[in-house]
């Protein structure tokens, strides 16, 4: 093992590979910053450049771009409320309010450090798991997916804000959005109204761009307020940056928990980084004692999703390398690059191509670390946009959002959808309908329904299957504990308060 690591590091740190790494990281960051584009887009665009390279160098370039794309998306999520990609959407909930408080620089620094550490954490877990890859991946089936989705949905009450009913209405709307289109498990078209465009369902990019970028820009324009309001100081100094960089260490337990969650979700094929980020955010809210600042600018709301969505990359390499099953969208594209270079991933990869495997794994860690300081440097300039007049900034954000919605699939219908969702999102902000439950339910709705029917088929109509599978049972227990814990904590606090009031003075 050590020989393989040493050989891989020798390749990564040779000048040519370092140049590729740097170029890949900068290009990935650039794609990540533009709404609608992501690390996956960077991969697609870079693959033709790798045709003349050997497999190791090609992987250095591609892995760097894929990793940096996730980091880049957090910059605009925080500073402009515009998620660069779906995986950064959960960061908007607390990142953007922090920017509005003049703490955008601190939030980007916290996101960058969380991303770097999360990426390294994911790789570390991947290295530990190498001997047990097969058992870990095969342990997850439809019952486990179902429990994972229900676990994610259980946080909706925690992110519902001032009105639980509004949060639940948001969840209903999110679930309905996830039902649109053709259902591949049970068959049949739903809510397509004869429009072929809707057969594939509501696409992720226009939904995210509409609900966050367009809605936020319309809100800024309608209120006429700058992102950082008049009278609020824009804190961009070294002290703020170092405060942000230290944030994951100050909340180390949360960082470990979120990264672990991201790695596990990454290992499971077909779940993806968006789910990982929202699960981590929801759990950060639900498990914290002081929830008052979440959604109003709590640095923990940045650390959780950013560490999780970067740790996910390490996890998603597990099924990709071990079985040739892509663990995420970017891994599916990477798999194509493997095949173009004549490499077939699978169990043999760990024996026949161990050096290349180590290059892939270690590039992921090194790229996470390299991309983060670049992200912080970029943000020190971009943060000044927070003081721009909304009458210049809003049309720019809306233009970037609409182009981003179009660019991913080159479909003008995505632009219409982004606008419709954007207007709805703007009204949701105006009438206190929280967007977090909408997006969480939209992300998890499809997975919930699909896994439910697959579980029923697996158990031949019986739910006993949950009690015969240890992982499913453990997740079921986790759902019950996380859903019930806040009520017990609340009850305990009230009983304590009541006994304090009754005590004679």
């Amino acid at each position: 093992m050590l020989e393989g690591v040493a050989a891989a590091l020798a390749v990564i740190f040779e000048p040519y590979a370092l140049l590729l790494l740097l170029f890949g990281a900068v290009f990935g960051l650039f794609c990540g910053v533009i709404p609608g584009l992501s690390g996956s887009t960077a991969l697609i665009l870079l693959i033709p450049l790798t045709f003349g390279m050997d497999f190791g160098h090609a992987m250095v370039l591609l892995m760097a771009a894929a990793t940096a794309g996730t980091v880049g998306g957090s910059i605009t999520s925080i500073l402009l409320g515009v998620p660069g990609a779906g995986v950064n959407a959960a960061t908007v909930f607390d990142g953007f309010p922090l920017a509005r408080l003049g703490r955008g620089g601190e939030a980007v620094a916290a996101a960058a450090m969380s991303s770097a550490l999360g990426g390294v954490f994911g790789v570390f877990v991947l290295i530990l798991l190498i001997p047990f890859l097969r058992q870990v991946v095969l342990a997850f089936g439809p019952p486990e997916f179902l429990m994972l989705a229900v676990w994610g949905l259980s946080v909706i009450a925690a992110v519902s804000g001032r009105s639980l009913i509004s949060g639940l209405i948001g969840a209903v709307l999110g679930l309905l959005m996830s039902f649109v289109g053709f259902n591949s498990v049970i068959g049949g078209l739903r809510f397509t109204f004869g429009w072929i465009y809707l057969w594939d369902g509501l696409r992720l990019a226009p939904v995210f761009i509409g609900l966050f970028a367009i809605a936020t820009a319309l809100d800024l324009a309608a209120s006429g307020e700058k992102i950082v309001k008049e009278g609020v100081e824009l804190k961009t100094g070294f002290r703020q940056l170092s405060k942000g960089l230290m944030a994951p260490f100050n909340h180390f337990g949360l960082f470990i928990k979120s990264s672990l969650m991201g790695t596990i979700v990454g290992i499971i094929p077909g779940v993806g980084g968006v789910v990982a980020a929202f699960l981590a955010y929801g759990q950060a809210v639900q498990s914290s004692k002081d929830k008052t600042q979440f959604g109003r600018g709590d640095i923990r709301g940045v650390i959780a999703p950013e560490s999780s969505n970067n740790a996910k990359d390490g996890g998603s390499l597990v099924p990709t390398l071990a079985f040739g099953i892509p663990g995420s969208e970017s891994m599916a594209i990477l798999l194509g690059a493997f095949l173009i270079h004549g490499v077939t991933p699978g169990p043999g990869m760990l024996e026949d191509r161990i050096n290349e495997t180590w290059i892939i794994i270690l590039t992921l860690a090194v790229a996470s670390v390299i991309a983060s300081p670049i992200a912080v440097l970029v943000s020190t300039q971009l943060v000044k946009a927070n003081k721009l007049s909304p009458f210049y900034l809003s049309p720019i954000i809306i233009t970037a959002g609409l182009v981003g919605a179009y660019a991913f699939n080159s479909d003008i219908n995505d632009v219409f959808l982004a606008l419709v969702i954007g207007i709805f999102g703007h009204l949701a902000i105006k009438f206190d309908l929280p967007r977090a439950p909408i997006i969480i339910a939209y992300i998890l709705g499809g997975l919930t329904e699909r896994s439910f029917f697959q579980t029923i088929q697996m158990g031949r109509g019986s739910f006993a299957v949950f009690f015969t599978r240890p992982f499913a049972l453990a997740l079921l227990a986790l759902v019950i504990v996380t859903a019930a814990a806040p009520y017990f904590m609340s009850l305990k606090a009230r009983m304590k308060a009541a006994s304090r009031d009754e005590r004679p003075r």
Partner: protein
Amino acid sequence: MRRGVWFYASILVCLTVLGVVALSYKGQTALFPLIVISAGILLVAIKLVTIAKPHLAPLLDPKGFFGDDDDAVTAGDEGAKTVDKTSPRRETVVIAWGIAYVSLIYLLGFLVASPIMTFLFAKAIGRRSGAISFAVAAAVPVFLYIVFERLLRIDLFPGLVSDLIGLSS
């Protein structure tokens, strides 16, 4: 009319229509949508009652289940907003501008629509300086062209009119 009544009433109408549509689906296809829509109709009805009769809100619509009044999280900046500074007129103008922008993109494409609508927004709606508005509006398509068309090789939508007169290749 109380704040938000028409918004939630519109959601109720949409849910009812979707419910009627879902009734036509067969077997398992209808199961999840019908359960979710039924719950949605009930929840929106409760919400409308709490808007119409605010004194019932503490009973029907708790501020989260997590204890004290101040202990409710707001995921997003929605809940923190206490003063609504927008006027209905400006609200309508901004939304109309968004619809006009997308319509113009459909007709003329991104590269033509973006400078027109950016200038219109900054100058006519925001009443900003003409020179700066012009500079910002001119920079937008240049940026889009360099980044998307040249650097990333992504062809931007050329617009229906460009297509008709054969300007797009």
